[in-house]
């Protein structure tokens, strides 16, 4: 390290409250960041990476206490500062941006005022000059029409714009250190690319040191100068980005890297060109806000969407948030009633059936949901959750429970899990339960709606393997809805790209990735982080 580090964390140990699952959030943490350097702290959920960042800022939850070590900012130990001195450090010497741009801004305060507030907190300038500075900052972070936008409230901004506001706020006093805690996780891939670019540019322009917390190796590969890999509160590997990515030393790092899906699709698998089992024709869905007087706002969530899937085939439906991909997925199960078009399972037009008449046919098409926490009823045992479907379709409860045992084994869980409640399982295990539930009805079609998006990368890889395996064994047709192009590349046979309710491009995965035709597809692919440095495993 050539220069004296801006931030130098030495032997930091954070104690967790007595009832937590481990004694320390982080222990013996050593990190250092030089001016203008970007250090990525990467780890899976629960690794303690966020706690470390909060400790620097002095924003630890009350229950978490630093018990050993130092946090030296330009040589001064922040842990030794009193409240007032620490307050002065915040905003002035260290800026911070958070994961959720939706909730990280005060909803009832104009964004200009919120930026100016950083200046006010450190008694810089007067009202007018602060406002001028806020507008300047907004210009600098690339917000359009900053003078007008300064008067806007957070809800009037898009997610990316809000994150830019957060950055403007954090950089208002040109702090020497910027802490970014998963700043792009909640953003779409194209927006993420822009924000990453912005962070990169700013630290180059101002020589700001950046502590960047993330779980996403794509992002790491895109932006990091150096990398620290955190596992269970301990740094297992630390070094220059190229070294860690190219030649991981620690087993855990290797495993993590191996789990990151490659953007290069595997060679096309041979598959039977059978009759399509699910065919969608001219599907349309319009969301309209009802109001007493006249029409409200209209959102075209799906417009003239057509595709079909054959047995044993996986069709990926990719797009950014609001593209309508989830709407289309849910329309196929009539969780959302489409306004136009038809959906056929084999020859059966399910849109023509009444809700009651469709019920017996529901077993043919099943769904795996995104959120492993929200998709299982917390008040029912795993066995009942899985058996519910067969019971509803007329199977004897006893037989259904027996079958549930087999299914649990099929998805890689012990049959003993049957009497336990969902909260006793980890996220990955829950997703397996969710899959078991979907399979309980022996469906022909599976709709997977962002089925692996909420999972840590290593778990994600396992679930993807499971889905692949099941597809092969059971000959399922899968509609795989995802925003993650890496995942799509690995699992889908064909891919349909959606934008603003329409399919803009559809084709074989390999072809589409190799030679995207539509500009939007090109834009999406270009925005995937880490393409440069992350090689196929």
């Amino acid at each position: 390290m050539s220069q004296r580090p801006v931030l130098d964390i030495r032997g930091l140990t954070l104690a967790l409250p007595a009832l937590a699952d481990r004694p320390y959030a982080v222990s013996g943490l050593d990190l250092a960041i030089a001016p203008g350097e970007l250090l990525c702290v990467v780890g899976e959920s629960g690794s303690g990476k966020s706690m470390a960042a909060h400790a620097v800022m002095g924003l630890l939850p009350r229950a978490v206490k630093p018990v050993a070590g130092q946090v030296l900012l330009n040589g001064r130990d922040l842990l030794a500062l009193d409240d007032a001195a620490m307050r002065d450090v915040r905003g002035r010497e260290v800026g911070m941006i958070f994961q959720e741009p939706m909730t990280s801004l005060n909803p009832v305060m104009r964004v200009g005022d919120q930026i100016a507030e950083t200046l006010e907190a450190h008694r810089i300038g007067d009202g007018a000059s602060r406002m001028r500075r806020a507008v300047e900052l907004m210009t600098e972070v690339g917000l359009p029409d900053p003078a007008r936008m300064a008067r806007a409230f957070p809800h009037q901004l898009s997610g990316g714009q809000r994150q830019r506001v957060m950055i403007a706020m954090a950089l208002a006093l040109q702090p020497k250190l910027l802490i970014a805690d998963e700043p792009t996780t909640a953003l779409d891939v194209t927006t993420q690319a822009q924000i990453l670019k912005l962070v990169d540019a700013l630290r180059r322009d101002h020589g700001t040191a950046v502590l960047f917390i993330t779980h996403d190796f794509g992002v790491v590969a895109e932006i990091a100068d150096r990398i620290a890999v955190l596992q269970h509160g301990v740094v297992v590997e630390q070094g220059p980005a190229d070294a860690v990515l190219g030649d991981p030393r620690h087993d855990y790092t290797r495993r993590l890297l191996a789990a990151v899906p490659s953007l290069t699709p595997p060679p096309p698998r041979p598959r039977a060109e059978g009759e399509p089992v699910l065919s969608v024709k001219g599907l349309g869905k319009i969301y309209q806000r009802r109001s007493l007087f006249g029409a409200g706002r209209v959102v075209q969530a799906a417009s003239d969407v057509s595709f079909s899937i054959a047995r044993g085939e996986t069709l990926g439906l990719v797009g950014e948030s609001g593209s309508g991909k989830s709407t289309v997925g849910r329309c196929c199960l009539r969780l959302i009633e489409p306004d136009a078009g038809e959906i056929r399972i084999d020859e059966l037009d399910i849109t023509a059936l009444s809700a009651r008449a469709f019920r017996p046919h529901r077993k043919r098409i099943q769904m795996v949901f995104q959120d492993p926490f929200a998709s299982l009823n917390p008040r029912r045992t795993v066995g009942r959750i899985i058996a519910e479907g067969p019971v509803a379709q007329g199977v004897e409860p006893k037989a259904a429970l027996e079958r549930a045992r087999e299914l649990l084994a099929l998805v890689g869980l012990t049959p003993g899990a049957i009497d336990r409640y969902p909260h006793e399982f980890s996220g990955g295990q829950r997703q397996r339960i969710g899959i078991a539930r979907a399979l309980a009805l022996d469906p022909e079609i599976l709709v997977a709606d962002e089925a692996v998006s909420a999972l840590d990368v290593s778990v994600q890889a396992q679930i993807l393997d499971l889905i692949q395996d099941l597809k092969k064994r059971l000959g399922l047709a899968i509609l795989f809805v995802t925003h993650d192009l890496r995942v799509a590349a690995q699992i889908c046979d064909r891919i349909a790209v959606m934008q603003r309710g329409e399919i803009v491009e559809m084709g074989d995965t390999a072809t589409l990735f190799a030679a995207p035709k539509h500009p939007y597809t090109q834009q999406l692919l270009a925005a995937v982080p880490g393409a440069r440095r992350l090689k196929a495993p």
Partner: protein
Amino acid sequence: MGFMSRFAANKGALVGLVLLIALLAFAVLGPWLYPTSPWRMVARPFTAPFVTDRFLLGTDTLGRDVAAGLVHGTRISILIGFVSTLVALLIGVPLGALAGYFGGWIDDALMRITEFFQTIPSFALAIVLVAVLQPSIYSIVLAIGIVSWPPVARLVRGEVLSLRTREYVQAAITVGQSTLRIIFSQVLPNTVAPIIVMASLMVASAILLESSLSFLGLGDPNLMTWGYMVGAGRTRLMDAWWISFFPGVAIFLTVLALNLVGEGLNDALNPRLSRGRE
């Protein structure tokens, strides 16, 4: 942390629970402690409290034992509190669940009705209902139930509205469960926690409401309730304070206990506070 330990971590809630258990004990053991009717005129009127052992809390205007009235009143007040809350729940929960689950015009219609009942000043409505139906324990319970269900309906509707979009409810739809079954097995069980919290506070308000009605002379004339005792003794506050003081304290303690327990339940059951985030 489990439910019990979270509840126990709240000192106020524990105090409330102890109080409540004591009250319930009084309610259960009442007839054993004071086997004769609390309406019996057993001693000289206006016997001061803490003077004789037999009438620890003194006697009232007619020479009735205040302590006996208090103990028997516990049963009635608690009974009225719980039953009228039950009535409110029986009206409010199904309405709220239907409105929240089905949405659309059903929601609109049911919410208009709820709004309608919220627009009539509730205490005034309770008074009129009791006057119309003539004061009796049934009319009082019904009146309290009728004026207190709208918040229940709103709460349940809100909960159901958010639960309806939960993925496990969607999952239940996709496996073909019937709507009624989904409401009863997937949705309602998950609204139990906030309903319990609200109900505990409603029992408290019902007891207060009953005492206010009794105070206005709209109580059941054959039942010894705390509100009746306060109302009957209020003109003698100056020289026979104990007649209405003790029942007043009883109301206060009960309402306090229920509120403390309600808060404790809220803390212990509220998933927002207990679900940790990284």
